[in-house]
């Protein structure tokens, strides 16, 4: 991870020929009681790409992300991550998934009783069984990557929203995941704090991290994402490189969504 070394605009990542996509979502459906949220969603995400999922509230984009990370049980279809089937009922598969996928939430979800350093090292010591010294070293390194090297001893309540979210990203990053999921990570932030979080995400994308984000930041998605997926009524309505998608929407729904200025 050499975020600071990378410079210039990011070349669009090309999928490695012949390699299996890192995430394969196939005909997934999901209902909450009588309410069907996902209607046969299929989506493939290539290694090293940033995929931005956009759409209106209630279009199922956050639910899809939560299904990929086994936070919600799916009712139909299959999800494969890093070649393994995701199943909430299979403990071993969930355990493997947790080691491969990191997730960042809208509400940060930092642990309020632990300082920044311990927030990051908790899983390193408890899950990865690293020594306290190794864990601390990793924590300091990832804090450096998100520009918060001086906040190791601070407690979450002492951080601004933007700082808290960067710590949350660092916390996921520390576990060296193969994929990072971002669930509306800037939606709770003031506009002036959004930039510092997006900057970190852009740096990660430039370094080749595979990222899936649910976002309302259309300008960011347009500029940084490799693929933009537009979800509507629980389906993948349109998907493609942002340049094409934004310039030439094929469906009236996407056209309307883009013109609504979200």
């Amino acid at each position, binding site marked *: 991870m050499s975020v600071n070394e990378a410079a210039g605009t990011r070349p669009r990542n090309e999928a490695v020929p012949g390699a299996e996509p890192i995430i394969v979502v196939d005909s997934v459906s999901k209902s909450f009681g009588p309410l069907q949220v996902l209607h046969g969603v299929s989506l493939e995400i290539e290694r090293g790409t940033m995929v931005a999922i956009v759409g209106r509230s209630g279009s199922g984009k956050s639910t899809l992300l939560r299904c990929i*990370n086994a*936070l919600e049980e799916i009712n139909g279809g299959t999800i494969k991550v890093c070649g393994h089937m995701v199943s909430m009922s299979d403990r071993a598969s969930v*355990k493997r998934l*947790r*080691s491969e*996928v*990191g*997730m960042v*939430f809208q*509400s940060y*979800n*930092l*642990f*309020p*009783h*632990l*300082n920044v350093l311990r927030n990051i090292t*908790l*899983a390193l010591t*408890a*899950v*990865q069984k690293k020594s306290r010294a190794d864990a601390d070293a990793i924590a300091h390194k990832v804090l450096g990557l998100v520009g918060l090297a001086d906040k190791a*001893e601070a*407690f979450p*309540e*002492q951080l601004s929203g933007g700082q808290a979210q960067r710590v*949350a990203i660092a*916390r*996921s990053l520390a*576990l060296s995941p193969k994929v990072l999921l971002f669930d509306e990570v800037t939606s709770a932030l003031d506009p002036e704090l959004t930039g510092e979080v997006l900057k970190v995400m852009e740096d990660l994308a430039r370094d080749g991290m595979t990222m899936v984000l649910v976002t309302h930041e259309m300008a960011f998605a347009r500029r940084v994402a490799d693929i933009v997926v537009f979800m509507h009524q629980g389906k993948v309505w349109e998907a493609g490189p942002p340049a094409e998608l934004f310039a030439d929407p094929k469906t009236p729904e996407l056209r309307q969504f883009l013109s609504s200025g979200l």
Partner: protein
Amino acid sequence: MLSYSFDFSFLLTTWPAFMRGAWQTILLAGTSIAIGFFVALICAIIRSGKNKLASGLVGVYVEVIRNTPLLVQIFIVYFGLPSIGLRMSAETAAVIALVINTGAYGSEIIRAGIESIAKGQLEAAECLGLNKFQVYWHIILIPAVERVYPALSSQFVLLMLSSSITSQISAQELTAEANLIQSETFRSFEVYLIVAAIYLALSVLFRVVLWAIGEVAFVRRRKLRT
């Protein structure tokens, strides 16, 4: 105006008895708090858990204890249990009754703490790969107890003060000692004023000790002075 001349001269000979009583109260209350905390913790875990039957049973225990007088609970343990063959000293009966009592009150306090933990915290911990036990310990139990620790401390100080009721079964503690001294000196006013002052000092002592335990146990409290 009634005239009453205070006479504290009996203190010269009875002071050691007061001190013995105070020490006995510290032991009685300290033991009851230590055991009562674990009873409260376990009851809170069961009460907020998924097992409906166990949770219901704990719920009945909590409500019965919170809606009956402590003195009656003490009498049941000390005078009632021997009828079914469980004989014990007054001090043991006192500890058992106080543990049962504070376990019920304490468990409700801790349960409130457990239920105040946001669901997002659990999801974040799960996503980091922590197993169920680790999530429960690191993300639920420790922060929950930290959050309600001030309320818990007050409950424990209250328990120490309530322990004076166990003088009714002649458990050895401060109030029982005072009753004895009073019956020998007939200086009721002075004796109970002194006892009140000693209880006040014990309350301060318990609060200081409980505060110190909190400082050691909870890093955030120490660092942020919250």
